[in-house]
């Protein structure tokens, strides 16, 4: 089964970090991603740029497209990155999510991917 591990976190503490703290945090994400890769179950992983640069797009019922500044919802936690992994079941995916530094910096969401039939 494919699972998407989504990291939601408040970006402000990251932006306030000293270079040394930043290096440490980035090192933990690197170590985690490497552990997934070497376990042979990593399908994709990316870090997203801050949501303040994001755009939100929506086509209204009248067919008019609208483009707005993100984030769409007023919330401190924003999607900061993701890992897509191959796991035997949800238990295994959840265990991997608890190891992710994202679970210490914010919240990890574990979502199963619809299997294509």
């Amino acid at each position, binding site marked *: 089964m494919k699972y998407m591990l989504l990291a939601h976190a408040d970006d402000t503490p990251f932006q306030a970090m000293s270079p040394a703290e930043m290096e440490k945090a980035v090192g933990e994400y*690197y170590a*985690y991603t490497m*552990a997934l890769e*070497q376990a042979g*179950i990593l399908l994709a992983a990316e870090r997203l740029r801050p949501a303040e640069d994001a755009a939100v797009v929506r086509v209204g019922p009248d067919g008019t497209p609208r483009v707005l500044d993100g984030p769409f919802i007023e919330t401190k936690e924003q999607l900061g990155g993701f890992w897509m992994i191959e796991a035997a079941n949800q238990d295994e995916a*959840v265990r991997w999510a608890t*190891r992710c530094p994202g679970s210490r910096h914010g919240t990890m969401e574990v979502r199963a991917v619809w299997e294509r039939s």
Partner: protein
Amino acid sequence: MSRFAPWHDGSPRGLGTVLSADAVRAAADHAARTAYGKLVALLASRGFDLAACEDALADAFAAALATWPTDGVPRMPEAWLLISARRKLIDRARRDRTRMQASDELLRRADADIASPDEAPAIPDQRLALLFACAHPAIEPAARAPLMLQVVLGFDAARIASAFLVAPSTLSQRLVRAKRRLRDAKIAFELPSADQLAPRLDAVAQAIYAAYADGWLENDPDRRAIADEAVWLARVLAVSLPGEAEAQALLALILYADARRDARGVGGVYVPLSAQDTRLWNHALIDEAELLLRRALTSHRLGRFQLEAAIQSAHIARRSTGTVDWTALVQLYDALTLVTGSIVARVNGAVAVARAQDAAAGLVRLDALAADPALRDYQPYWAARAHLLGETGAVDAAREAYLRAIGLSSDPALIEFLRAQMP
């Protein structure tokens, strides 16, 4: 569904709350700790459906919290709770009479129990039978420890799920399935026969140990509470089966680990066993564990838990001798590997070899395990490998293994420890 469990809600029970509410809560708390599993066991042994017993007891505890503050705590709280729960079950059985063939028999048996809260004889303790039912071969292994925690101790599914790192909805489904299985397979709530006792006891002991080990790893208060209750279950098992060496050994094993609780993390810093300050160990608990282990070993029926406890005993011997007998530990880990085949025993055995001989010899053992797929996310393997590679001076390989061990850790104290070790 989150079950009502008033004594595990984590609310403050210290000074400053209204006395009467506090006193009632304390009485309910006390009754709950000792009574919950007892009452579930008794009702279930009378043939009532397990899930229905739990619902009825939850209602009874809710009624207790509602009425005891005004009516006073009954003289026999357990009997009060039993009668209240039984009444609910009987009402339900009467309602379901058309669907339930056995209801007449159930009612007759239920009525054979005590009739009034004041003439109650001692409530027979069938918790042991309940423990065995929870670890029945028909129940999937992953559900056994959670089922015990819920049925015998009244923990709600959400807290158990969190401690076992499982999604709450998944755990709830697993528990519902397990209870349905107990009902449909008509599994009796009774002790296994003498020839079945040993293998069934192993499953019970493993489930209790799983509940303990899962709680011990973290400093989270919820997990700590589950670990504490697992200690208590191990005590129930050891006291109830004084002639069973493995039951004594399980309690010893858990006490050895519990005795080192305060020494494992000092000021948020992780301290490995070999570096722990022995003055921070709880020596009364260790003495008790040593006594239990010695008694277990006289049975001359060696089992997994006796080996595990003997390993702990060898590790803590340095509190008096100042040294650890690594050669003896290699033999113990090898014996444990033979009995369990577990990767944990193999990795620890390799580390013991490294101490008894040298790092290179330990690495040879670790290399021999490398093909095992269970290692891909087994943090202790990578931490051990990193450490031994560092000792042999293979800096690059050591750094890579340290990174992998860090990537597999969730505990910040452990991550900090590994980072500091990295060459």
